[in-house]
């Protein structure tokens, strides 16, 4: 069913302007991606609010769910700057968001969702000159949810800002700074009966995380081209 109207889950003009793969390759990757870019968020919207809305498109009975949420941060201030990535376990869940959630309100703002090539290190930070998103560089209107013009924000917003400003002060950069969210089920090693499960050593764990990263890098196309 897609002849007389355009489905809402078609890829839009959104793209990662710094991705270094051609459009066709991008489209192939997008057709399998389970990551969403979510834009036009209020700076005060929390990951838990995002989780609540975006969990309405999950299909856990098919092995799906929200894998992780990566909040977009201002490069300099380490405060949310109005976008995030939501990563699911399945492609179908991300598609469902394009059909049902994109264009509806979260925290009283109309948000937009786009299918994304997948999170890569460093993409959690804004790319604008001032540290935030490029779009906020040139914005001429007053937008209380996105920093307004300054101190005129409403009192409620000030309360929320105080919390938010400290929340991500500890945000790290570099490999492993962003959690993976948990991978697929794996047989516990050498432990069939639950009572005698031995604890894993930190080294083993390091390996497992290494694996998760290796998987992630399969979708890291820049590396592929370099």
């Amino acid at each position, binding site marked *: *069913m*897609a*002849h*007389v*109207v*355009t*489905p*809402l889950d*078609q890829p*839009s003009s959104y793209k990662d302007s710094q991705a270094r793969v051609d459009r066709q390759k991008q489209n192939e990757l997008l057709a399998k991606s389970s990551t969403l870019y979510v*834009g*036009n968020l209020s700076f005060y919207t*929390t*990951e*838990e*609010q995002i*989780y*609540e*809305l975006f969990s*309405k*498109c999950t*299909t*856990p*009975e*098919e*092995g*799906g*769910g929200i894998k*992780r949420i990566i909040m977009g941060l201002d490069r300099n201030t380490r405060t949310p700057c109005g976008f995030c990535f939501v990563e699911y376990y399945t492609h179908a869940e991300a598609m*469902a968001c394009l*059909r*049902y959630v994109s*264009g*509806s*309100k979260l925290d*009283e703002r*109309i948000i*937009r969702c786009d299918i994304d090539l997948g999170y890569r290190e460093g993409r959690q930070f804004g790319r604008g000159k001032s540290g935030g998103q490029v*779009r906020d560089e040139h914005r001429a*209107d007053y937008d209380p949810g996105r920093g307004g013009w300054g101190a005129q924000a409403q009192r*409620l917003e000030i*309360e929320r800002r105080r919390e938010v400003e400290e*929340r991500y002060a500890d945000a790290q950069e570099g490999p492993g700074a962003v*959690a*993976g*969210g948990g991978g*697929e*089920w794996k*047989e516990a090693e050498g432990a069939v009966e*639950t*009572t*005698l*499960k*031995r*604890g*894993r*050593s*930190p080294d*083993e*764990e390091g390996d497992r995380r290494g694996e998760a990263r290796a998987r992630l890098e399969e979708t890291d196309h820049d590396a592929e081209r370099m």
Partner: protein
Amino acid sequence: MSYHRRRHNNRGYDDDFRREVYETPEQKLKSTIFKLGEVDPILEVPRITKQLLEEPALNAPVISEGFRIAVTEQPFKIPYYAALLRELYDPVEDVDESSTASPTLGRQILDDFWKGFQASLDKLAWRDMRLSIHLFAHLTMAQVITTQSMFELLRSFAAVLDEFGVSHGRAKKAALCASEGLMIAGPVIKENPSTNVIDIISAIQAYIESSADSKRLVQPTVALFSDSVTVEAADEILDSALATLQILNSSDFSQTAESYPQPYLVAPKPSSAPFELPSILVPPEVIELDSLHTDSGEDALVKKEEWAEFYIRIFDNDVTPDPTTPAGYAVRSGLLDLIDIYEVNRKECARLLLEFPKWTLPGTFKPKPGAPPQDGVSGKDWQLESTLIETILGSLFLLPESNYKSIYYVALVTELCKLSPSTIGPAVGKSIRKMYGLLSDGLDVEVALRFVDWFAVHMSNFNFQWVWKEWVPDLDLSIQHPKRTFMRRAIDLEIRLSYYDRILKTLPEPMQNPDMKLLPVEAPGPDYEYDDPSNPNHDAAQTVLNLLRGRAKAEDVMSHLQGLKNTLETADSDSNVDSIIRSIAVQSLLHIGSRSFSHFLNAIERYLPLLRNLAAGGISSGGSPSFEARKDILDAVIAFWKHSKHMVVIVYDKLMQYQIVDPTDVVAWTFLHGRQFVATEDSSSFDAFQWSLLKGALDKANGRVVIARRRVAALRKEEDDRAAREKASDQATMEVDAEAKPDEPVVESAALTTALKAFATLTREQRNALSRALNGFVDCLVSQSNPNVRAGEVIQEKAWHNRVNWNEKEWLAWETWGWYRHFCRTFSPYLRNYAKTLGAVSFARVGPAGDPAVELFRNIWNNATGQEA
């Protein structure tokens, strides 16, 4: 291609951007057909007829493809497509005398269209089939298709109902094909002396009577004491179709003309011979061959069960159509098809829904405000907006689940409100009030949950404006009364989508009163038990917290905990030191992860070895049984997040994802300790929060089996392909030998062996989780050793009629029954698989036979697992 390009400007964003697409001549030709009726279908038919007749003959396949798409994607236009085909079938003016020998364009299209119908049949694409049958039925009325062949077609669908062991899903869809065809073509079929419409009607009736048992399980309002297969507040779709057919038949289908547009009737009888539909057989359902079995031999392929469809009625018959009448059924089914087809684009769907009256007979709906007055047809003259909302909510509230995710229907209502706020808004308000009223009258617990979820998401799109004041008097009801529960839950969900202070502001003063327990006294935040310096373990916990804050290595934290344990043991021999250590460790971890979901994930990932060690009963000399350890972990989570149900659900999900705890642990814990948020102390109740934990755990167990099955299937296919390639290359290189080598046994790859082992483990886990859940419900409702008297009382008719006097314990018992019912129907496909083993274990522990509660418990189980009562 969208031909209604509209641009929305959302604060500088253009969210509807589409690339320009160049239209080929074929696409143009098709869109001519799609666009029929954009202004006035009656006037456009002759023009498009002429245009199509001018097309070169080789374009006929493109045109019939256009018809196929148009009919299956724009069913509201089918009567006009029938009129167009009628014109093309027997063109009034012969364009070219010499062409009379070759079939007319209309006949070619119909030939082609039939081939497409055959293809839908082979794929069992039911909706496409049913809508094609609509077209055939209209063409039969237009005398283009012979009555006899149409009747035979419908009879082939009715024959499905007599198949041995037919699934309800298949029977339902076949019955709808037959009935809707008959509703439209009935007038001429009944006239024909060699056909007998009663054959079809009685086949449907007989099927409905034989399938009555399972209906009770999916009714949207519940009367636990009653055996009735009908309910006041909802109509079952097959029942509606049958009632409609009976009304039509009793008046020789004279009401068909008042229910469906028949624009083709003005045309004379075609001069060329009418079209004969070839005879068909509805092919059997494809049985997916999957040689995967669980280790105890159950079939592992789970097939979704289809149930009776009860659509809730919110308004009176003079406001919205009664689907058990001909005109009402036509409108209702037309809207349901639109909602179903346009799921891919909710914005277009909303627009088409608001335009729907254009495609109905005049007088069906009240004219738009401001439009010239028009005489309503008596018995119709319905309100469009109320009809739309009622139909969408009917789809949203289908049990055990809606066709699409709930959020689709919620988002669709939002789009309607955006397009026409002044007319849709009041209909939404009235629907909310009506549904809220039903909460006192046995609204199913799951429907109530979807209702509150819709309410909260809807309000979050419209500034949280609701007239809460009108529900203030209900604060006098029992705290577990469904209306109080609704308000509490609505506020909780609104806070999740927004934030505490924002929602508090929207509530009238009496509701803000903490004594009403409608919302917490402060924003739902973490609660680190050891923050308080007076806590005896405050200092110990601080040392752990400092290590975690300093990002100490997991092994260092573990040895520190070990030391702590030794100290505590010498200081205090009475308390359970293992539990205290686990609580300190887990709460401290949650504490460093409490800033956000990501912080929590980071904390968990950094200390996975620690958590695994704790979960396995580590850091304890005796090595206590690990369920105890995992129970302590789950306890620590709820202690830390006691003010936020949302966080509990999120944390449990990830603890399962990281395999710190198993789904079965969460199931067991939910029944034993999940009552923390219930306002009353009651050891045998089960509420919506517990349901969310239970569902999360069972979904996780089932989802893992799905993934494992997929992996096995993929590996097997890979191996088959490789074997086939090797065989082919062997044959190519080998001389044809007199002694052909016997096929060598296929050696399983290591990957496949691992995948099969994982599959076996996970299906075992799945069965354990389901079994634990069933046992849990036995304990709640019908335990022999610990009988629940209240569970027996609330299912009595007399008690139900006296429910105004129920206290919270009675309401909780009633709710517990509701969740048991919903558990059975939701997980029915899985339960069916394990019915014998699960039933045998759990039913050994129930109270005596003959006890009404035990009988009801068993009936629900039997209904859900498809066993004879």
